[in-house]
C-alpha cells in the first residue's frame, strides 16, 4: 500500500481542534509491515531538521498524529505517532451535541461552580440614599413637640 505522509511542526495547543502546522517534509512510501492506524510506527531514512518535527498527517489514514522521533542508527529514524483525535475528527465532533460544563464565550455567570477565587479581604462600600426630606438636627430641620393636657 503506497501512501503519503507529511511531517511538520505544530504551533498550536495540543488540545486545539484547528491546529496551525507547518509541514516541512512530504514523504511517499509503502507499508512493508503491518501498521497500527492509531499508533503507527514508521522508519524514515535521511530526514533533515528532524528535531523540529512533532506532527504528522497521513491522509490515507484520515488522521493527524502527534509524533516522537527516535534515532535508530545513523540516518535512520523511527517515527512513532499517536492520533490527534481532536483534530482528526473535528468535523464529526462538531456535529455532536453535548452538555457543556465550561466555555470560553458561552456561559452563565449566575451558576456557582466554585471556580472563582476570592481574596481574604472582602470589599466594603456604602450606598447612600438620595432624595426625600430626611431627618436633620439643625435648627431649621428639627422641632420641639410639646404635649399638654386639654387644649
Amino acid at each position: 500500500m503506497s501512501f503519503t505522509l507529511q511531517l511538520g511542526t505544530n504551533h498550536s495547543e495540543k488540545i486545539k481542534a484547528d491546529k496551525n502546522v507547518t509541514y516541512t517534509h512530504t514523504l511517499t512510501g509503502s507499508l512493508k509491515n503491518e501498521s497500527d492506524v492509531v499508533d503507527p510506527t514508521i522508519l524514515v531514512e535521511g530526514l533533515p531538521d528532524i528535531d523540529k518535527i512533532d506532527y504528522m498527517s497521513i491522509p490515507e489514514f484520515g488522521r493527524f498524529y502527534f509524533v516522537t522521533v527516535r534515532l535508530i542508527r545513523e540516518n535512520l529514524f523511527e517515527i512513532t505517532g499517536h492520533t490527534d483525535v481532536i483534530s482528526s475528527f473535528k468535523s464529526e465532533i462538531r456535529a455532536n451535541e453535548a452538555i457543556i460544563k465550561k466555555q470560553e464565550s458561552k456561559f452563565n455567570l449566575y451558576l456557582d461552580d466554585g471556580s472563582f477565587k476570592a481574596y481574604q479581604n472582602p470589599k466594603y462600600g456604602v450606598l447612600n440614599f438620595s432624595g426625600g426630606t430626611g431627618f436633620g438636627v439643625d435648627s431649621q430641620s428639627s422641632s420641639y413637640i410639646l404635649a399638654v393636657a386639654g387644649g
Partner: protein
Amino acid sequence: MVIGPGQPGRNDWTYQMNPLFMTLSEPLAYANIGIGFYAKNYGYPELIYCMPKPAIDSLGYTMANNYMNLEGGSVSENQNFRNKIATSPSICIFNYYKWAILRIPHYVTTLTDIVDQTDYIIYVNVNGNVRRASYHDTSGHVWRSIYRRKTGDRSYANGAEDIGTGLLRLFELGQVYNSEYNRIMFTAEEAVIGDAGYDAMIAYLQGEEAYPDGKDTPTDPKDPYGPIIGPSGPGGGGGTGRVFSLIDEPALPFISSVGTGFTSLWSPSLSDLQALGRKLWSTDFFDQIIKNYQSPFDSLLSLSIVPFNVSGVENQRMYIGNYDTEIDSTKILRQYVNLDLGSCSINEEVGSYLDYSPYTRMHLYLPYIGFIQIDTDEFMNHEISVKYHIDLLTGACVAYIFVDGYVHLQYSGNVSTQIPLSGRDMSGLYQATIGIGLSAVGSALSGGLGTALTAGALASSASTIMASKDKVQISGAVQGSSGILGVQKPYILLESPNLCLPESQNTFVGYPTYMTVSLGSLSGYTEVDSVHLHDIPCTESELREIEELLKGGVIL
C-alpha cells in the same frame, strides 16, 4: 385511535395515564363527520376502516327502527365492512351521531387475551340512546341482537352504571365472556355517552396495556422538568427586575388624640418655650393648675425634640388645661406624620452569582432604629426607598422599606429626644408606642464566631472565603436620645467578595455554562460535562480518548 373523515394515521387522541381508560383531548370533535376504526395489526395500531358520512349513506346503512341497520348495504359492501370489523381485535369507535361500537372478544379473561378475534360485540348508541347491541360470530357472519333497549328499559344487572366500572369489573374479576357483564357495559355506556362530561371516555383494550401513545410498546416517560424548567441558556451581566407583591404604603391613622380636647400638641419655638418656662413658675399658673393636678407638671405630658420640621397652625393661643398661657404658638393639628427618607438603587456589580448571597451581604442603616440585615437576593437589582410614619405624641415611628415603590419590610423605633420637665418617669409613654415592626436588635446580623479560617485560604473559592468569615453583629438599636446623635439618613453597608480573577480566565478554563449545545456552534475553550458521541469514524479507543479530552477541555 382515529375518528375522522378518511384521515388515516391521524392521532386525535391523547390519553390519561390510566392503562385502561383514557380521555379524548378533543371529545367527539369529529363526531358528526364520519367514522373510523382503529385496530391492532401485528402489534401496532392501524387504521383499518374509515368512512365519511356520504360513504356510510352510500352503503345503505340507514337508521331504521331506531337502530343502525348494518345489513342494509349491498352484499359485497356489507361483507367488506363486516370483514374489516371482524379482523379488528380491539376497539372500534363509531362516532357518527355519537355512536359507539365496542368490540370485545368473547373469550376475554384478562387484558392480555385481547390479541385475537373470533366474535365480537357491537354496541350502538344513537344520539345518546342505546338502541342495539349485538355480537357477531365470524364463522357464520350471523348478526344476533343480544340486547336491545327499548324506551324506558334499562338494565344495570351488575350495578355498574358507567362503562368504566363495568369494564373494570369485567377485567379485574377475570370474567370470561358473559352477556350479562357485557350488557352492563352497554347499558352503562349510554349514561356515559349521553353525559357531556363523559362522552369522550372510552375503554382502550389494545392488547396487554394501553400506552400513552396508543401503541403496544411502552413510551419513555417525558422529562418532567422539560416543559416547566426548559433548557438552560446563556446569562449573566444583564440582570432583570423582579416583581414583588404590591403592598402600598399604609395611610396615616385618621383618629388621633389631637382634637379630642384631652390632649393638644404644639410645636413651640425656642422663645415660646422660654416664655412658657417662665409662666410655669409663676404663682398665677401654679394657683390655677393646682386645682386640677397634684403638680403643675402633670398638665404637661411631654416635651421632646423631633428631627424634622413639623407643620401646624401658627399664632394659636396656647392653653394648658383651662389656663391661658397668653403665649401664641404653632398648634399641631395632626398627631401622625410621614417622612420620606429617600431611595437607593442596588445594582449588580459583576452580574453574576457573586452579587447575591451568601457572597454579597447587605445591611441597611435606619436612623433611630439601627442596622438591619437585609436579604441580598431579595433586594439586588431593585430600588429601595424608606419612609417613616411617626407619632408626634410619643415619638414612635415605623420605618417602611419599599422595594420598587411597594412596602416590603417594616421596623419600629423612636425618633424623639425627650426633654425632662421634672423627675417624673416618662416610661409609660414609651410603653404605649406601637410595636408592629420587627426589633432592630433581633434583626441585626446573627452569628457570633463563624467557622475557623481555612488554611491557605488565599486560593480558596469565593464560597469558601465568604463562608469562613466571622459574622459580626454590626449594631443594635439606635433610638431615643442616641438617635439624634447618629447619622440622620439611611444607607446601605455592602460587603462583597474581593474577586481574584486571572486575566483571560475564560480563555484558559472557561466560565460555567451547563447548557446543551451543538459543539459546532462553539469556539474557544470548551469543557464538556456529558456527551454521547456518535457518527465518528474512529476506533473505540479513539472514541474514548475523544470523550476524555472533551471532558478535560479542548479548544474548538
